[in-house]
């Protein structure tokens, strides 16, 4: 902006800059401290001064974390694998289901379309509490508790903000290409798959990345519905929760640091896409 800033404005910005530096430090320093502690020996960590640098940089804690962090018979790589396949299934299937159902509501005419839309909005507006008990009971009765079917079935839930964003996105796409495809004899599915879906790839990719990050960090859902399949998040929580005494903290920290690396890599390599989601995340009345 070419307009010069007033004095009070510059002072305000200066104060905010100072506060931002302090706040950024409170975010970064504990992380750096945890990384440094992950290189210490177990005894050194327990008894030494926590501010000291490691006496000997024990990078061997990292391979040891892969071996020794075992929860319910699942080792570290097993937890990573559980996170990957669970998220993989629910992202691929869930994205497809959300995209095609939202598309039919936004673009096609069929009886009940408005009712579907109204029900989805109603579900968003009214939070229902305490349904976990009922949900667990039903899933156990149907035999989809604690197995792959739980992940598959859950992908068929449609609604939430993804629905709203995609709905307005599909509404804004021109119908001309679809019409041309219909004239050429394309079926409804072909129109969706070859004409509409490719155009929606940008927002869908953002959702997929958000879902992956959310799923990678989610410890609650696996803890409740997939207890035999500890993921990287639920597994690390369980390991610590069960091993209060005699835990090798530096090795555990090493595991924690490894668990954050994929997310950081995705974040750094896809900052552009995140900035796309920045303008998409904006709400307009």
């Amino acid at each position: 902006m070419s307009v010069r800033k007033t004095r009070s404005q510059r002072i305000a910005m200066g104060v905010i800059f100072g506060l931002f530096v302090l706040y950024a430090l409170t975010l970064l320093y504990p992380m750096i401290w945890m990384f440094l502690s992950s290189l210490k020996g177990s005894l050194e960590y327990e008894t030494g001064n926590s501010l000291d640098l490691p006496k000997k940089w024990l990078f061997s804690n990292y391979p040891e974390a892969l071996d020794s962090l075992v929860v319910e018979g699942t080792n570290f790589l097993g937890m990573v694998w559980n996170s990957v396949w669970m998220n993989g299934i629910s992202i691929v299937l869930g994205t497809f289901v959300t995209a095609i159902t939202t598309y039919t509501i936004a673009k096609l005419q069929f009886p009940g379309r408005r009712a579907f839309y109204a029900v989805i909005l109603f579900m968003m507006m009214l939070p229902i509490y305490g349904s976990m008990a009922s949900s667990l009971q039903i899933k156990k009765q149907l035999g989809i508790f604690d197995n792959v079917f739980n992940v598959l079935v859950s992908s068929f839930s449609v609604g939430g903000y993804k629905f709203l964003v995609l709905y307005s996105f599909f509404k804004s796409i021109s119908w001309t290409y679809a019409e041309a495809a219909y004239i050429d004899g394309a079926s409804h599915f072909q129109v969706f798959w070859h004409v509409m879906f490719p155009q929606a790839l940008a927002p869908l990719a953002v959702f997929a990345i958000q879902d992956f990050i959310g799923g990678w960090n989610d410890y609650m859902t696996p803890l409740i519905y997939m207890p035999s399949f500890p993921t990287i998040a639920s597994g690390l929580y369980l390991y610590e929760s069960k091993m209060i005494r005699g835990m090798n903290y530096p090795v555990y920290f090493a595991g924690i640091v490894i668990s954050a690396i994929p997310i950081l890599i995705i974040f750094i390599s896809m900052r552009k896409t995140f900035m796309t989601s920045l303008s998409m995340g904006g709400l307009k009345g």
Partner: protein
Amino acid sequence: MKKKAGCESMDLGFWGNLKQSFYECKRKIFPKTRKNASVSMKRGMTLFSYAVWALPIVYFLIFYVYLNFNSVLLAFKDINNNLTLENFQIVIQEIVTSDGEILIALRNTSLFFILTLLLMPINIVVSYALYKQVWGYKFFEVIFYLPSIIGGVVWMTAYKNFIHPNGPLFTILLHLNVIQEAPELLANTDSAIWAVLASSLWLGIPSSMLVYLGTLARIPQDVMEAAELDGVGFAREVVNITVPLIWPAISTNLLFTVIGFFSASGNVLLLTEGRYNTSTLSYWLYDQVVVNGQYNVPAAMGILMTVATLPLVVICRWLSNKVETIEF
């Protein structure tokens, strides 16, 4: 050599040829009338839509309609499936007696709710300063985004050990003689809930940053420039121009915070597992169902919470219709 589309000499490969001849056969058996697009467009549209929706509808019927019906049944039954009002009595007893588990959870839930409300103006100021390109804003944008992308388990492991009596925080404070003895903040009934709240405050300062930044980015530049040329002060610009322009984002956030009152919670599981009076309503429900395997009392509690939310939803809807939004 250029080939015309649809030319017979086009090499489609084995599968392509097979597909082509299949289509030709089909064409001969069912000759297509290409009168206009709308005929072929409308044909089978309802069928296609319902085919697409079939499984999501089944999911909805089981995991929304029947699930909530089953919740009500659970709430009015005991373990042996006999009808009873006992579950509600237990809940009410836990609310009215001081030191009742649910009463403490309700108090803590309110504290987390208040914290979320207090954080909202801070969130807006943080986003606004980034939008105004405070010095180093690109760096801050990346760092402030970390709480949303790095998992709670990672942050809370760092937090828990950082404020541990042997951790860096108290090592520094002891060294500076600010305190004489390092307390166990998370293992103490007086301080534990405040330590859990502090963790939410710590990570919550830049939350909703993306939403606000996205909305701010859409404010037309000429509005801001005109205001600055007119010599509008910093405070007035924020109060009279920026806030009204991003009001839709603020009110939506506020709306979902208010109707989600009972779900307000923090990192209770990761920090204290509900000990030292740190339980919230959502944690209490989790603890009862998953840890204790008790379904009936939580179902009753859930119904009470949902019913108590209904007036909030109605009031919020009414309010959001009252307040005019500015289109830009």
